[in-house]
């Protein structure tokens, strides 16, 4: 049986979901027998690969770059999973949503900066008006809420997918911790 091609993506989040993923510890070795991690912050690969079976995305949709990436990922992924509250609800990155982007940038880069006060115009991608949950922009197939989702919830979801079943996360994970 061929291995399932899995990708993990880190958008606007704290990487806590990836930490929880790594917290599966020795169970990662069992999983490794069934999956191929083809793209991840943990894998040194620049471009998102063509055919991915399952993509887990951590983090909210915050910048134009995120939006571009997300559409590309959606196109190349059979199954898209929102991993963690930022991807599911916009969570902490979404706390800026009640304020206009301008004032958020001013606050962060001018008012609260001690050195080199300037709003970056290059290199850093432009923020969207609001940080969004992924499913407000693309179709998402599975949601694993939690901040972060417990490693058991992630393990359960992956095991079910490996076994060819659709996991029911409703009793395994919830908003918050």
């Amino acid at each position: 049986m061929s291995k399932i091609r899995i990708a993990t993506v880190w958008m606007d989040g704290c990487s806590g979901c990836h930490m929880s993923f790594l917290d599966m510890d020795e169970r990662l070795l069992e999983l490794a027998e069934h999956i191929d991690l083809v793209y991840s912050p943990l894998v040194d690969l620049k471009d998102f690969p063509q055919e991915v079976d399952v993509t887990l995305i951590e983090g909210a949709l915050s910048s134009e770059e995120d939006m571009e990436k997300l559409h590309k990922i959606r196109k190349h992924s059979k199954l898209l999973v929102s991993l963690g509250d930022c991807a599911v609800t916009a969570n902490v990155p979404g706390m800026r949503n009640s304020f206009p982007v301008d004032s958020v940038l001013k606050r962060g880069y001018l008012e609260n900066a001690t050195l080199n006060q300037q709003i970056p115009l290059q290199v850093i991608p432009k923020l969207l008006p609001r940080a969004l949950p992924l499913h407000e922009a693309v179709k998402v197939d599975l949601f694993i809420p939690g901040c972060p989702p417990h490693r058991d919830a992630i393990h359960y979801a992956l095991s079910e997918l490996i076994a060819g079943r659709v996991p029911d996360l409703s009793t395994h994970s919830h908003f918050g911790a």
Partner: protein
Amino acid sequence: MTLDELREIARIEREKQQEVPRKIHVCMAAACLSQHSDKVKAGLEAQIKEKGLEHSCKVKGVGCMGLCAAGPLVSVEPEGKLYQGVRPPEEGSDVADIVGSVDGKPANKLELDPGLPFFKEQVKVVLENSGKIDPERIEDYIAADGYEALLTALTSMTPLEIIEQVTKSGLRGRGGAGYPTGLKWSTVAKARSQNNTKFVICNADEGDPGAFMDRSVLESDPQRVLEGMAIAAYAVGASQGYIYVRAEYPLAIKRLKTAIKQAENLGLLGNNICETRFSFRIDIRLGAGAFVCGEETALINSVEGKRGTPRPRPPYPAQEGLWGAPTLINNVETYANIAPIVRKGGAWFAGIGTEKSKGTKVFALAGRVQNTGLIEVPMGIKLRDIIFRLGGGIPDGRKFKAAQTGGPSGGCVPEQYLDMPVDYESLAKVGSIMGSGGLIVMDDSSCMPDVAKYFMDFCRTESCGKCAPCRVGTTHMYNLLERITSGAAAEKELSLLEELCSVVSQTSLCGLGQSAPNPVVTTLRYFRDEYLAHIGEKHCPAGVCKTKPLSRTTEVGK
């Protein structure tokens, strides 16, 4: 005041009226007043005095004559000549021309044909005195058989017999829901309460956009509503009544106050009316303009001095209403039907209308129709006849598109149902409601998603905020309609909109929320292609909405 004394007043008044053979009626209801009909009246009086016609011609301020768009309206009786758009003396010679024609000179260009379907095809029960009597003189009402019903009821009918007549008449609540009035009365009559306290409330919190039936009745014939309430109070065993009228109706309030005072002075309201044990007082309560206060439980909260938010029903007001006492609450138009029913019998009333919807209905005809104004038609009349015969059709050679009945709680009725009879059941069948009588006609220059958005905006801002589905749901529905009409929506948002419609109508606490999705549901049912054009082609077929191409930052749900 006994029945004989009442009839004596009527006789004297009629005699006095017959002393002057000719009368000029000037509409003094809000629409014509706003066009300075008061100045027209003063001008006519001056003109008559100038010509020395005081003994043969008298000017009288009356209530609404119906064709509000053509105001100020003036009629000359007994010929029944009708003049439209009469300008005050400082603006032209209209007043002099009218008085001149009374004097035998040829009629002028302002004359309207009283044989127009707008006038001829109406059947007047509620509005029988509107445009005929002076709303500020109780004697005029009494001369038109006013209070005959109340005093007959008090002296020769039992409460049960009155309820029997009302039940037999088949009258249903004119406020919107169409609950059988007789059944409601008998429930309140049977309800037991501490100290035998019961209340009668008149709901005059007319809030639908484009609706002015209640206002017109109160401005044109306020005594009729008081009489209806007094009969109701006698029938159910109440001794205190409240009229809850919105503060935005200052003229109606003023005339109601005058009417109550005059009725009290004649002993037609107050203690031991007609020398019987029946006492009844009416007080006015002003609404501060919240649409939701037209909902009966919210209205009751407001009368009690609380925040105007609805309570769950049951218990219904008939069981536990104002201050926990059994309360009869009916709409202005419902009460306005009562006196004629008692006077002429339930069977007479039941002879008008259809099998399940008896009597007449007053409609405020508004929107894209030639003759806007107030009409009273028998139940079961075809919508086509209302719009194209009475209403005179669509102006500017445009095409009829839809009619909105029942205001923001109602639905859009499209062209294919124009031949449907207008009654409670038929309107419900096509997804709309009778409502209180607002009828807004739309032509092909209207964009239906935009119309739905307008009504949803209304419901969203009028939601009281008590229950979650209405408070949040109407906001989401409005936002989705905003996205659709601006060309920003994706197709999956249409299904979300439909789901929210279903959720909000099933779960909201009161009628406002339960019916708020109706305009969306009916426009989606009959004009779905317009929604799809906004979503798929980013194009508004009616050319109303400013759709803009999808930008990526607002792109949602591809």
